[in-house]
């Protein structure tokens, strides 16, 4: 597994930069990962990140857009505004979760 120094920590990442070991995740790391994507995390971003992490813990999969709409209560438009050009991929990466594996 390739290692990378992010926010002063050595973490394991996969070829696309997703954390390989979710237990290495913390908030400082999330801020740094967001910075690489040119994003500055606000409370609205954190709500999405925390929902993804909670849902992943409960169901073992990164939720798709419809679940974010219906269960998370996030509108599609808002998600694209918060995480432009790939909301779930970007939010999952910042949340320390694997790359989303669903088609929808």
């Amino acid at each position, binding site marked *: 597994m390739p290692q990378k120094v992010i926010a002063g920590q050595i973490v394991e990442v996969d070829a696309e930069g997703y954390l390989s070991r979710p237990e290495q995740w913390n908030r400082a790391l999330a801020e740094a990962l967001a910075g690489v994507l040119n994003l500055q995390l606000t409370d609205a971003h954190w709500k999405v990140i925390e929902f993804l992490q909670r849902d992943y813990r409960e169901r073992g999969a990164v939720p*798709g*857009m*419809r*679940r974010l*709409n219906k269960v998370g209560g996030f*509108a*599609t*438009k808002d998600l*694209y505004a918060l995480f*432009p*050009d*790939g*909301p*779930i*991929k970007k939010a999952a990466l910042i949340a320390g979760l694997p790359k989303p594996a*669903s*088609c*929808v």
Partner: protein
Amino acid sequence: MNAPAPDRIRKVSIIVSRGTLDGVYPGLIMANGARMEGIEANLFFTFFGLYAVLKGFQDKLRIATVGNPALRVPHAKGAPLPTLLGALPGMSAFATWMMRREMEKLDIPPVSEFLEMIHDAGGHIYACKATVDMFHLRPEDFVPQVDKVLTVGEFYELSAGAQIIFT
């Protein structure tokens, strides 16, 4: 020497020409998937594909149980459904109900909701002018997510730099 890595896809124009449930969904999934990858997406509905954007019809699309030799019962690896049985009343509705139920389990939205999702994701949705004229339709017959009725020339113009995908 290695060839340079091909450039990533930046824009797609997806044409939906069929009006069966299985004719419409692949285009919707591809358009939504494009937006989720940061790819610009235009959806163009033509001929019977237009029913996916017609008010009152878009959530009534069905699977064809006649002339569909790949359709098997009671599951995907079962026996082929003979055409004569496929023609029985209710068969198409039943097959459609089965597929919708499986899609619901995978969180694949109904057509109306899927189009809203694609529209809210910044995808553009167009209807084909030739078909609109042929079917005697008016702009108010379409769901509000339809941006415009386009001629084929306009379609090519807005597809500049895009990969064109016909479904």
